């Protein structure tokens, strides 16, 4: 087993005191940027990039990837505590993480998230170790039609699941598509839905929408409910952490399912955000406790977190082997590689084995360090929640405003976030589901681009979506997922009241 031997060599490269120190530094810095919305992992990595110019490539990439792990963990923290996703991929964590924290179990929610995230990440790294050679060739099989099929699967798994009014779900999802359309169209190069406003030509950032809809919207709701987070006066008990870690293996089915989804979406172009949504949706459908999702169900935290992190790790593989970044952060790191004089591509594994395997080895170490460090922060974060809302509220507001500004250094974005805040407040009170909006906004333009690229390739024939085994299988699975709610409704038909619709992820307004 060649890979294993090379991995051991990699450990020899990565396991030095100097590198371990770099990992700790990177993880801590990553935690800070992950916690601050707007300053996500991509920003963090690009801010550190200048520091790495004087380092050797292996130390540099260890610093950047450690920061990446830290930021991924930090992103979940604010999702759970304040309903503000620090990273796009941690939006799905808010669905159950925030309700659980609201029930006074913030420490448990955080520990669940971090532990399952760590398991997910290590699974991802394991996949990279075992499949590195194969994945590069597999990823080459993805043309525009296959890209579209991946996005289609993500949508299909999610569409059937949101409860509540189908009209409101439709409106929410379509508004997400519309928001994703704003800006310059990749295929035609034309400006769309900008109405000649300069501010809109760059498009509407997904982070702005999330800061407004989730962060500010939730603040308004909390304010209205009477100036405090209900029941967050949790007893600070360190033992909760240990007990929760021991609880995690109980969700083995969800862990395995989510890790598989995550690895799949990380290797294919779906990415961590799509992975976490899809995993949440499928968890809700296939888990025995699925109907409790959205009300603070532990599995509802485990599912998206595991998938998010396994996808995040696996996404580094296409970057290294093909030079195609699977996420925005990977794109920045790729820029770094080129500045250090390394070219990502199929030859990197043979021409720079020390670098590649050192990096992979450091991914094991970095994630373990990240889990330990982040678990140590749980009491600190749980403590923050005990402060009165009249103090915490304005602080969160400031964080949201700065976050909105730092996304692109535009004051206009801050106004936009305030607008989204009102929309989020009204939508939540009227039981509009927000998840379809977010999913459509993240994947909408990518799905449209790949659809139209596929159409151009096939001269307008939709047969391209069934032209080979790979794409046909994915489209078939997608269609199956799409029809599943209908089929299961038919099978259940007349067997009493439908119990699946009651627990929409957002069906928790006052």
């Amino acid at each position, binding site marked *: 087993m060649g890979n294993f031997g090379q991995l051991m060599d990699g450990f020899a490269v990565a396991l030095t005191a100097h590198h371990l120190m770099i990992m700790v530094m990177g993880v801590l810095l990553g935690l*800070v*940027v992950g916690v*601050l919305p707007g*300053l996500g992992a991509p*920003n*963090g990595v690009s*801010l550190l990039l200048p520091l790495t110019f004087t380092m050797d490539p292996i130390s540099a990439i260890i610093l950047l990837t450690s920061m990446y792990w830290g930021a991924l963990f930090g992103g979940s923290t604010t999702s759970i505590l304040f309903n503000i996703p620090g990273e796009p991929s941690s939006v799905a964590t808010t669905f159950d993480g925030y309700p659980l924290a609201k029930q006074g179990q913030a420490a448990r929610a955080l520990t669940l998230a971090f532990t399952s995230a760590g398991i997910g990440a290590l699974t991802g790294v394991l996949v990279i170790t075992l499949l590195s050679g194969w994945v590069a060739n597999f990823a080459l099989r993805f043309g525009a039609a296959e890209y579209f099929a991946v996005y289609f699967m993500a949508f299909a798994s999610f569409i059937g699941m949101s409860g509540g*009014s*189908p*009209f*409101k779900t*439709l*409106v929410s999802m*379509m*508004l997400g*598509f*519309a928001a994703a*359309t704003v800006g310059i*169209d990749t*295929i*035609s190069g*034309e400006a*769309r*839905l900008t*109405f000649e406003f300069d501010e809109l030509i760059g498009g509407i950032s997904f982070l702005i929408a999330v800061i407004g809809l989730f962060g500010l919207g939730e603040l*308004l709701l909390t*304010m*209205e409910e009477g100036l405090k987070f209900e029941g967050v006066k949790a007893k600070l008990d360190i033992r909760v952490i240990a007990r929760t870690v021991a609880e995690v293996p109980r969700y083995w089915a969800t862990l395995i399912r989510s890790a598989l989804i995550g690895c799949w979406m990380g290797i294919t172009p779906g990415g961590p955000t799509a992975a976490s949504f899809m995993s949440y949706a499928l968890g809700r459908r296939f888990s025995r406790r699925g109907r409790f999702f959205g009300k603070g169900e532990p599995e509802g935290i485990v599912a998206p977190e595991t998938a998010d992190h396994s996808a995040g790790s696996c996404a580094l593989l296409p970057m290294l082997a093909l030079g195609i970044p699977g996420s925005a952060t990977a794109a920045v790191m790729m820029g770094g590689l080129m500045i250090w004089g390394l070219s990502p591509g199929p030859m990197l594994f043979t021409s720079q084995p020390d670098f590649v395997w050192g990096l992979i080895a450091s991914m094991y170490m970095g994630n373990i360090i990240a889990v330990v460090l982040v678990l140590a922060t749980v009491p600190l974060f749980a403590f923050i929640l005990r402060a*009165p809302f*009249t*103090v915490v*509220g*304005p*602080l969160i*507001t*400031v964080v949201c*405003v*700065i976050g909105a*500004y*730092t996304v692109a*250094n535009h*004051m206009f974005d*801050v*106004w936009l976030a*305030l607008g989204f805040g*009102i929309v989020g*407040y*009204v*939508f939540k*009170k*009227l039981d*509009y589901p927000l998840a379809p909006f977010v999913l459509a906004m993240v994947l909408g333009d990518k799905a*449209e681009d790949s*659809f*139209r690229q*596929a*159409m*151009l390739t096939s*001269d*307008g024939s939709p047969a391209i979506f069934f032209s080979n085994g790979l794409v046909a299988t994915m489209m078939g699975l997608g269609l199956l997922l799409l029809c599943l709610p209908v089929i299961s409704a038919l099978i259940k038909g007349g067997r009493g009241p439908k119990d699946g619709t009651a627990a929409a992820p957002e069906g928790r307004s006052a």
Partner: protein
Amino acid sequence: MDISRSTMDIAAACVTAAVGAVVCYGATLNGFAWGPSGPEPGYFPFYVGCLIILGSAGTIVQTLLRRNAAGHTAGHADADSFLDGERLRTIVAFFLPIVAMVAVSAWLGLYIGMGLYIFYALRVAAGFRTLSSLLAALAVVAVNFVIFEKLFMVPLLKGPILEAFGIY
């Protein structure tokens, strides 16, 4: 002043329908036919806009039907309140200072905006003593300054006053 849930449902649906109409109009500027080699740039946005209008109309009809049904059975259809006067005041009292902070920030920079806002929120809204509010506001500004300007080198908007003091 009470706003009933059904009124708000209809109002929100009207707004989303209007957004849908704007999207449809915007899409027509790009051409929305299905050309020989796939859809034109406005094709998807146009139907997305149509679906927004359709969904909004559905919500309006559903709400009206429910209101009528409730009216027949219970007599008072608007029992389900969206927002009453007191809650509205709470919300506005919370939201307006945020708007003010953003307006001040756009003019004098984010640091001054956030400092004034924190001071206001702690002194007036939360009722802390002037000195502690002031110190807290300064602390927030200082922490943010160190994190953004020094640690991560992300320059936030400064505005004329800070520039006059030589802080860029």
